[in-house]
């Protein structure tokens, strides 16, 4: 019974995924169908059409093992080994520098704005 419920949840997530692709293709939206599926599920959860308990166990199972899906894709590195060796320095520079830039910009900016918001809240509390 539990297994059947779990399978139904998986099918449900798959249906939402297919629906996402159907919508983006029909409307010619320039972004991925699976992201549309994500947005659909989010909206259905917020509006209460779908209850969290209906899909939670399959969803958390898939997210917990998300890394598994990366593996067969990463094995494809076998095919591009030559290209990676040839352009290794350029690619690694791009990956390392952009990771550092992204980390510093994201954390620096959000910490600054978070502090400012906290200070503003304190100010409101002090003047009340």
């Amino acid at each position: 019974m539990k297994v059947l419920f779990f399978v139904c949840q998986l099918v449900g997530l798959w249906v939402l995924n297919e629906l996402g692709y159907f919508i983006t293709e029909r409307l010619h939206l320039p972004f991925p169908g699976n992201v549309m599926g994500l947005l659909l599920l989010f909206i259905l959860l917020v509006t209460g059409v779908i209850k969290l308990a209906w899909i939670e166990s399959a969803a958390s199972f898939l997210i917990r093992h998300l890394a598994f899906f990366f593996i067969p894709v990463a094995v494809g590195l076998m095919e591009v080994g030559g290209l990676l060796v040839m352009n290794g320095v350029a690619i690694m520079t791009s990956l390392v520098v952009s990771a550092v830039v992204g980390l510093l910009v994201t954390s620096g900016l959000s910490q600054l704005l978070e502090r400012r918001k906290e200070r503003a809240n304190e100010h409101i509390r002090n003047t009340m």
Partner: protein
Amino acid sequence: MSTFVTLCSILLTVGAYMLSRLVARKYPSPFTTPVFFSTALIITVLLILGLSFEQYKPGKEIMTFFLGPATVALAVPLYKNRQLVVTYSIPAAAGIVIGALATTLSAVLIGLLFRLPHDVVASLGVKSVTVPIALEITALIGGNPTLSAAFVVLTGTLGTMIGPWLLKRSGITSSFAYGLAMGVVSHGQGTAQAATENELAGAVAGVAMGLTAIVTSIILPTLIPHIL
């Protein structure tokens, strides 16, 4: 014969994954992260057995069937933490949009500076998004899906190696800002790293990863044709 090879490649992948989880728990290190460790192990076994990626591919198609539904499932952590997103909506939105743009553009510009082929540069653009979404964006902007996946995995690993060290040394004391940066830059792997250090950082990273995917999948297909 080919059905047998397919079955074996699936068993090999599942086995490598299960083994890597055990190893990662016992010896936590960037080199024992499941993706890095399993991939290295599988490629080694395939090379020893003299099998090509072409022979592994049918198994890959079966195993990645649930990639799409797994992406849809990311709506669940987003929904669970929606209060957090609302409370910090402005710093979160600014950090995610500007951060995703900064990491994507710097990667693409360095690629152009080194005169890398265009499909390689396009693949560099998607590296901060989780694999299933990266593959879809790649199809839209004309990159190489295998390279995109490789860059995503490399970025995730790099972020978990550099991130904690770099952010602590550059004066980031807020768990919120820390988690946000890890999620924006290093998607799933960054989220897992942030979650082991701090519960709030983990939750924020998960949300950031999902939102970065959405932001990037809207920005890139409109931006890339103008740059390349």
